[in-house]
């Protein structure tokens, strides 16, 4: 084989491609010869951590992925759950961490583009996105730059492509100084019997390339960039970051959805990580077929591309389709009408091999299965971090009590992790497609479902994404359980029933036993919580090597939950809506400040054993919320999380169109700061015109509940036993502090706010 760009291949070159000696031997055994240079490229990307999940897959197998609603679990481009009346919700979350650190705007933009393609590939119209983004301290000018770039990238792509970004979460913490996280979630809606899969089925069927031309961008982006730690050479990797074109994506969406209304498409997949290689191998592997293709037919935007480059390029906005034989012209014509290129580049074969030709030479001839489905699987050693017990040490009696709860509340609301994120989400189109019932800023977003022909339905989907990395650092299993519980609880606070989960596991270098232990523990926690709450994990993504100069991020298993509410016309909001309403506390706060934001912000401590999540209580609470909304027993439901009861109450007071105070009294015999700022999971603040019907329902369903006071006035007042005033703050002032948390720091950074 002496096609252009070919060169001799040996173990040393394989190593440069990130392959191990073991893997090299495996390649020789599979082929019975040394690979060509193009083939080496194929193996290196397919067996990269990013594409093969080799460190995580044996652990992921234990996750609960089935359930009565689940139509498609992990393994396809995205998961799918039935939402009734023949409709399905298709969703997934995915990381674009490494590229976003190197080039924040394009890195984040292409992250959004990739997740949108995963969803519309299934035949679903993408309707709503969430973003989960994490940076180093906002005081650091570099991280201000990264925040601005990432937000601009997410906004630019989502806004232009016409998909609403309806919520998300943002963390600022020193552990992300060397590795920011950009996790993008998208959800689409499809008729359940029109879900398309990435299957290259039907021997003789044409393989069609559609969308943007192929260039040299993004070669080894996912495979090498996202499968290794950062170091001094990281800057040199900028060319591996792809550039996004949302206009082309918008046209691709419309063209693909139009095609998928008919019967000409057999299988379809986007060319994401590892481009043409990954999409063709995965499609053939799932269908048990082979593919032969001719790279000379691939539309190209650069001259003299080698077969290696054509196979590995991660140029954006490209799709691979298998069409019914004889219908190729009709398929290509739809793309052309949308101004897109589409050409037949090969055929499906029956021999289970991938054969790729270039200028008359065969440059790749590999059996599909050993590369795709039977890729290497590692059982990496795992060991509890030596300092874990040290992290968990906290003697609450030794922590000085809060001397000024009012000042503490303001300090928390001013913290960028707790303060308003409006600066971010105002840059996102939250409304396009006309379905956004609850916008960002509350517990969960709520999006009305329309059928493909535009007919509105009584269904709405609630979406939330959560992870408290501090808790995961203190105990990855407990922290992940807390993330699942919080995401599901946020969804439940709208009145929706949580249906299923997707997740993005962001961790450090898995070659270190401590990181592997964190990952294993987190997956175990994810499984335990998903099982207990009856919310299977239907899709996900793993991002490892989030580590620079040997310093890893905190374990960050981001969890997104999707819930169904029907009819949506009855839903709860997270703010107080009227004066004189009863405020009811659902769930019981415990005297605990371990891992709390208060402890971090006011005492400079990240320590303790995270408060345990009572999953049985959690499930009862979610059921109560759904019933209470359905029966009109409450109008407000707001989750108590970061910053505890005081912050949650403040948010309920000022997050609505009008500021409404509250006057509350607690009889709990505990430290005032623990009641005000403790973060016991499974606690929700509710408000209703009348407390009694809600309390009765709570009693019936086994959820602790008590009336604690009434809404009204311009102040938030909390009293303890005997009427002692524990907190007395002006709502307008709290709101001002909350709203300025991000802008004041971005202005201080010297740039434009």
């Amino acid at each position: 084989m002496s096609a252009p760009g070919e060169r001799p291949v040996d173990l040393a070159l394989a190593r440069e491609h990130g392959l191990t000696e073991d893997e090299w031997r495996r390649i020789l055994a599979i082929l019975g010869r040394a690979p060509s240079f193009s083939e080496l490229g194929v193996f290196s990307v397919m067996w990269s951590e990013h594409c093969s999940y080799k460190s995580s897959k044996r652990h992921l197998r234990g996750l609960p992925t089935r359930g009565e609603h689940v139509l498609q679990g992990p393994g396809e481009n995205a998961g799918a759950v039935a939402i009734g009346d023949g409709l399905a919700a298709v969703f997934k979350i995915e990381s674009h961490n490494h590229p976003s650190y190197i080039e924040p705007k394009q890195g984040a933009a292409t992250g959004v583009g990739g997740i949108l393609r995963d969803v519309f590939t299934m035949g679903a119209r993408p309707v709503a996105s969430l973003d989960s983004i994490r940076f180093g301290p906002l005081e650091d000018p570099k991280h201000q730059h990264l925040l601005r770039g990432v937000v601009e990238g997410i906004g630019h792509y989502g806004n232009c492509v016409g998909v609403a970004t309806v919520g998300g979460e943002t963390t600022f913490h020193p552990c992300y100084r060397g590795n920011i996280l950009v996790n993008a979630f998208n959800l689409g809606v499809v008729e359940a019997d029109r879900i398309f899969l990435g299957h290259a089925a039907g021997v003789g069927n044409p393989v069609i390339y559609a969308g943007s031309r192929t260039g040299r961008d993004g070669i080894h982006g996912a495979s090498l960039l996202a499968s290794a730690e950062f170091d001094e050479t990281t800057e040199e990797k900028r060319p591996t970051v792809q550039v996004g074109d949302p206009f082309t994506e918008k046209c691709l969406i419309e063209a693909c959805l139009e095609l998928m209304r008919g019967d000409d498409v057999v299988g379809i997949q986007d060319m994401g990580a590892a481009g043409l290689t990954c999409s063709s191998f995965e499609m053939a592997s799932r269908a048990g077929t082979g593919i032969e293709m001719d790279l000379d037919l691939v539309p190209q935007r650069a001259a003299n591309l080698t077969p290696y480059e054509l196979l590995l390029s991660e140029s954006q906005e490209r799709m691979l389709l298998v069409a019914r034989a004889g219908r190729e012209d009709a398929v290509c014509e739809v793309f052309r009408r949308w101004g897109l290129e589409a050409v037949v580049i090969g055929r499906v074969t029956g021999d289970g091999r991938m054969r790729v030709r270039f200028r008359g030479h065969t440059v790749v001839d590999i059996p599909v299965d050993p590369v795709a489905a039977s890729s290497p699987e590692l059982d990496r050693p795992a060991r509890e971090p030596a300092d874990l017990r040290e992290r968990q040490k906290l003697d609450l009696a030794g922590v000085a009590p809060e001397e000024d709860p009012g000042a503490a509340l303001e300090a928390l609301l001013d913290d960028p992790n707790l303060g308003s994120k409006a600066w971010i989400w105002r840059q996102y189109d939250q409304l396009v497609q006309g379905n956004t019932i609850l916008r960002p800023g509350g517990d969960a977003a709520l999006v009305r479902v329309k059928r493909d022909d535009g007919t509105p339905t009584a269904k709405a989907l609630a979406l939330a994404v959560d992870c408290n990395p501090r808790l995961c650092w203190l105990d990855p299993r407990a922290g992940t359980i807390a993330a699942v519980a919080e995401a599901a609880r946020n969804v439940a606070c709208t009145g929706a029933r949580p249906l299923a989960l997707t997740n993005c596991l962001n961790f450090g270098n898995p070659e270190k036993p401590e990181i592997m232990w964190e990952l294993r523990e987190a997956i175990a926690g994810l499984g335990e919580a998903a099982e207990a709450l009856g919310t299977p994990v239907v899709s996900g993504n793993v991002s490892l090597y989030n580590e620079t100069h040997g310093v890893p991020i905190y374990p960050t298993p981001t969890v997104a939950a999707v819930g169904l509410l029907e009819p949506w016309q009855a839903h709860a909001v997270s703010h107080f809506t009227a004066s004189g309403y009863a405020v009811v506390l659902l769930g019981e706060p415990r005297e605990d400040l371990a891992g709390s934001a208060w402890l971090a912000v006011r005492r400079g401590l990240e320590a303790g054993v995270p408060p345990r999540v009572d999953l049985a209580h959690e499930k009862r609470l979610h059921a109560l919320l759904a019933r209470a909304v359905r029966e009109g027993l409450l109008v407000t439901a707001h989750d108590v999380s970061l910053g505890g009861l005081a912050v949650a109450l403040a948010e309920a007071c000022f997050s609505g169109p009008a500021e409404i105070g509250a006057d509350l009294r607690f009889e709990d015999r505990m430290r005032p700061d623990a009641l005000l700022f403790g973060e016991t999971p499974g606690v929700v603040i509710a408000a209703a015109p009348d407390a009694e019907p809600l309390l009765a329902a709570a009693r019936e369903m086994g959820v602790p509940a008590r009336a604690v006071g009434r809404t009204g006035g311009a102040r938030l007042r909390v009293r303890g036993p005997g009427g002692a005033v524990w907190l007395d703050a002006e709502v307008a002032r709290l709101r001002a502090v909350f709203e300025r948390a991000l802008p004041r720091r971005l202005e201080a950074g010297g740039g434009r706010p």
Partner: protein
Amino acid sequence: MFAVVQFPGSNDDRDMAFALKCVLGVDARLVWHAETALPAGTQAVLLPGGFSYGDYLRCGAMARFSPVMAAVRRFAEAGGPVLGTCNGFQVLCEAGLLPGVLRRNRDLHFVCDFVHVRVERAAPPFTSRAAPGRVLRLPVKHGEGAYTASPELLARLEANGQVVLRYCGPDGGPGGNPNGSTGDVAGIRNEAGNVLGLMPHPEHAVEAAIGGRDGALLLGSLVDAVQAGWTPR
């Protein structure tokens, strides 16, 4: 029949058609940008929001050359009502059907939020359902929405009563300008009065629980005008 023009990159086309069909109950159809004529029976034309052709050159700069735009121009010149929202407003300015230009927002950020606009002129075909001075709550979502006009042009627009909507505070007083528009202009019409461009999105405020109903006042006014056979004087 209400014709909603669909450029490649239009995003709010389906939402506009939804508002007209499902909420206001009139016949609305999407018209592909490559058409050289409007469908027979077209009574009003709507240019929706989005990023026509990606807006890579300048917002609306490519769309003005679309085949369908020649037909829209003829329709407007014959007195037919034309409403452009957001990107549609930009297209109308680029096409010279409305005066002035739309530039990057004052703070250079894309902004999506609800704003208040005051109805400066309550008359058919776009604002007959609102009383003068009425404050509407409507969403904006744009990166290039700063309406920009020379002092002379602005004076002329004011004198002719062409400023139809103006950004304001919740009570109708000053403030609330989200993008740095000259004279707080949120929407203007042409001299004849049959072409209106505005940055806010009435189509995203037609259902009480999803953005409120204030946008239906504007679109409903257009429906009234069409049904009454309104023509410019």
